């Protein structure tokens, strides 16, 4: 799979039994498959929080290393939510050292969009991304999971270890702040 650190994690690991003692421990190949399933989703989430591919990969790697240190296994039903929560916390605490990826080449805009309109859209989305980065952490995470990851509220509540109503409140206030921020910037820009 990956040379270097991640190989050491997948091949040296001894499968552990699940906390309930019921299900059989995963083999090394099972571990690898489960990790790969989670890894893609985690990298997508990390990208939406840090906006740099290498940083996202590093943070996901770090989360898996923490899972190994805590002796968590894919057989554990808490494994998935724990991983998402750990990756989210690592991303929110991550101090960005590298510039966010530019958006222009990654947006799915129609071919018949005029260059001026395209540039305006790119600029508006870049401002929106910056405004998301300025939200309080819980609102930012809740809104990212809901609006960008399109996750259901109960799953978001499980990841954030909050009630569904608390998650809805964070999403709501995140949307309100975002709208205020974008309209403030727009009125400031038009002066």
């Amino acid at each position: 799979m990956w040379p270097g650190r991640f190989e050491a994690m997948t091949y040296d690991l001894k499968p552990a039994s699940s906390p309930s003692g019921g299900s059989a421990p995963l083999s090394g190949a099972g571990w690898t498959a489960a990790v790969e399933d989670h890894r893609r989703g985690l990298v997508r989430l990390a990208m939406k929080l840090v906006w740099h591919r290498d940083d996202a990969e590093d943070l996901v790697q770090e989360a898996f290393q923490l899972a190994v240190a805590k002796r968590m296994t894919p057989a554990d039903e808490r494994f998935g939510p724990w991983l998402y929560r750990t990756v989210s916390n690592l991303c929110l605490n991550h101090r960005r050292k590298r510039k966010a990826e530019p958006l222009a080449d990654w947006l799915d805009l129609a071919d018949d969009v005029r260059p001026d309109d395209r540039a305006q859209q790119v600029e508006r989305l870049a401002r929106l991304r910056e405004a998301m980065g300025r939200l309080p952490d819980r609102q930012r995470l809740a809104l990212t999971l809901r609006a960008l990851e399109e996750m259901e509220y109960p799953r978001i509540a499980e990841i954030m270890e909050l009630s569904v109503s608390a998650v809805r409140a964070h999403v709501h206030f995140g949307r309100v702040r975002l709208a205020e921020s974008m309209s403030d910037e727009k009125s400031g820009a038009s002066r």
Partner: protein
Amino acid sequence: MNGCEAIRAHLDDWLDDALGQADRDRVAAHLQDCRDCEAFFARHRSIATDLAALGGAADRMAALPVTPRRRPSSTARVLLRIAAGVALMTTVGLLVVSYFDDSQRDAQRFVQDDFPRDSEVPTIEVSRFHSTHEAGRIVVPIACDNPKVHIVWLYNTAERDVPLGDEEENGEKPV
């Protein structure tokens, strides 16, 4: 809660397409009559659409194939950082030493070239004993073996008129 507030309370479910039919119809009817609420909902709809576009862009970035990177072990990284620090300090030290060395060398060059250590600052002998008086001019020979010494002749009137050739009689020494 007035009409607009009651409608705006449905914003999140409206954005999430989670409203029941009755509530959806009620919101639609209100938005047709209320420009403020219509603008409010439109602004939030636009932001939700833009957020979905951002999510799509992030997914496309994340779908790039990974180029495996082999990172050095933690010990090697620590050693690399120490080596980088030593190299930086050495470079800074060399720059500082060379700066002060140049300054001193310039000063020394000035001293060595112009005023050799084993000799004193050259004196300029202006001897009136060997001056000649020609046609209203006094020609005063000035001797100095160092070409870099510039002689500035300050014109001034003599304080007293000492006839030429009488200095020894008057007890004066050459200047």
